[in-house]
């Protein structure tokens, strides 16, 4: 509270000091703010993973279900290749290089894929000579092995030493065998 000297109160001059009524500010309720920040921050810090953001089940793609799982190679630097029934997408930017039929019939498509993958392995090695270039193939389960074989051939020519297929992890063996 501040004090002012009042010279004129009720028509009479006086030197009496009176308190100035200062309007009280409303209290700020930060319960919701701390609520949101605490839960969100704790959950995000615990769960976020850059690898999960990159490697996830693409939309409109059905993975085969398998029982076994393996860890990626140590110091792996992954490049993702998505094979849909009607198109092939390369890299994190999902560059469309053409259809599956183009892959087997059009030399230019194969060359583009080869150039892209070779460029990726070169960049990986340039950034970190100890890194292991890993190609992760995410293919729909209806794609024919004809195209998979062609992709594997191109991948080997691009100096990828480790090739992985992405699948969904299943639990019960008997159930998975009968799928």
């Amino acid at each position, binding site marked *: 509270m501040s004090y002012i000297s009042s010279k004129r109160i009720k028509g009479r001059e006086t030197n009496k000091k009176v308190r100035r009524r200062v309007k009280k500010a409303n209290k700020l309720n930060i319960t919701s703010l701390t609520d949101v920040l605490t839960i969100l921050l704790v959950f995000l810090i615990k*769960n976020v993973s850059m690898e999960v953001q990159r490697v996830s089940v693409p939309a409109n793609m059905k993975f085969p279900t398998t029982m*076994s799982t393996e860890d990626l190679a140590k110091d792996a630097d992954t490049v993702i290749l998505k094979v849909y029934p009607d198109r092939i997408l390369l890299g994190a930017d999902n560059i469309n290089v053409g259809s599956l039929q183009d892959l087997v019939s059009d030399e230019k498509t194969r060359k583009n894929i080869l150039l892209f993958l070779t460029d990726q392995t070169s960049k990986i090695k340039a950034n970190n000579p100890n890194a292991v270039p890993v190609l992760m193939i995410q293919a729909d389960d209806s794609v024919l092995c004809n195209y*998979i074989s062609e992709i594997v051939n191109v991948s080997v020519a691009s100096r990828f030493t480790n*090739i992985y297929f992405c699948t969904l992890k299943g639990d019960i063996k008997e159930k998975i065998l009968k799928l």
Partner: protein
Amino acid sequence: MAFSPSKGRNTRMTGMEPLDMTPIMNLFITIIPMLLTMLVTVQLSYISLNLAATSQGGGGTGNGPGGEKIKVVKVILYNNRIEVQEEGAKSTSIPTFFSQGNVKYDFVALDQTITDIKRRNPDLFNIKVVPYPDVTYNTLVRSIDICKIDGFPNVTYSIPETRYYEATN
């Protein structure tokens, strides 16, 4: 008992304060939907691919690094059957079957066959999977998976080759 005005000032009854719904609404409208959308309900798995060494060629037996002979087991995937060829033993043919209007591979029988081979050859860890072009990726991956589960961690991916020989008279 009547209190003096100064004492009564502190015990004056005030009305119930309205309940602040903001934190609860924050929880149900923002945080819980966000956590549910971030929830991952599927678990991804990876299967590595070993590629056939070009020096070994197609068919026949392979040689180990010390030159010793390594028995080769092949799982050949056709569009109407699976053939399991074990060197020195009779090959097993597992035909497809119809189920709910679809043609399906008998992976249960394949699992049993691979298990039997492993039982006869406990020191054998290499197996070759050879899919024909018209076989689906699903069949290929599941065959590789069954081989790995049944004790053959070194699964080699090989492509069927067509060879031409010149006729000699």
